[in-house]
């Protein structure tokens, strides 16, 4: 994912997801943004060991979908920063998912994942992304999501 230079985006080595998302406590799975441009985002995420859906050191694979959704939300927040002054993270909603495939039944907690969300199209406040969640370069979750963001 190359820096296209079409928008005045700073080259950040890592952006903390806490500054971008309204999620807190165990709800926030995204940790930091590695890189982004107008086409998409690559980030690091992790499922907390005390997540409410986790048990015995593992969490259901459906949380991979949540990781992807949060990456998409972070991308929305970052690209919005260039068109409007936002004083607080806006709430975004996952409204649709389709063609999502899981290659594993469970995901480990307290372990880093690489999360990518590539923008497929947008008609604000709606946006569509293709997401992948990987660990050790193996794709564990992939699919398409649609999001709705507060104005």
């Amino acid at each position, binding site marked *: 994912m190359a820096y296209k230079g079409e928008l005045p985006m700073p080259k950040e080595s890592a952006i903390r997801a806490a500054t971008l998302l309204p999620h807190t406590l165990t709800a926030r799975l995204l940790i930091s943004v590695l890189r982004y441009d107008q086409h998409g985002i690559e980030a690091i995420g992790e499922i907390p060991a005390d997540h409410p859906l986790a*048990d015995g050191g593992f969490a259901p694979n*459906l949380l991979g979908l949540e990781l992807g959704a949060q990456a998409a939300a972070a991308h929305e927040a970052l690209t919005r920063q260039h068109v409007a002054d936002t004083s607080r993270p806006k709430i975004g909603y996952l409204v649709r998912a389709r063609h999502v495939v899981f290659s594993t039944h469970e995901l480990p907690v307290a372990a880093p994942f690489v999360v990518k969300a590539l923008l497929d199209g947008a008609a604000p406040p709606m946006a569509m992304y293709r997401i992948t969640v990987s660990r050790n370069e193996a794709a564990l979750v992939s699919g398409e999501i649609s999001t709705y963001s507060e104005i």
Partner: protein
Amino acid sequence: MFPNADIELILPRPDRQDTWCFRINKQSRCFDGHFDGHPILPGVAHLALVLMACRLRDAQPRFLTEVRELRLRKPVFPDDEIAVTIDGPPNSELVRFELRRAGELVSGGVVGIQGRAADA
């Protein structure tokens, strides 16, 4: 299934063998941080309810293999009672589902599921 989520099975529906009712208790940690001052059940937790219903139907743990379609239409709030209807024969690998609150559709879709016995 999901012992830390504080999702209560209210009662199985005697009139409908394909529907199970759950209460998402106000103190459920599913609402922690999602969002502060404006608690809403995370969209992916709708799928957790589907898995819980499948577990009750099939009497064994079930895992998602795919989400062919998920449409989230309405938010779910603390203390909401959600009726989960799953359509498909027992132990089927493809399940169509609907989640309703007081008859109102809050989400629906189609998922692929698998039992742990089939896990290689």
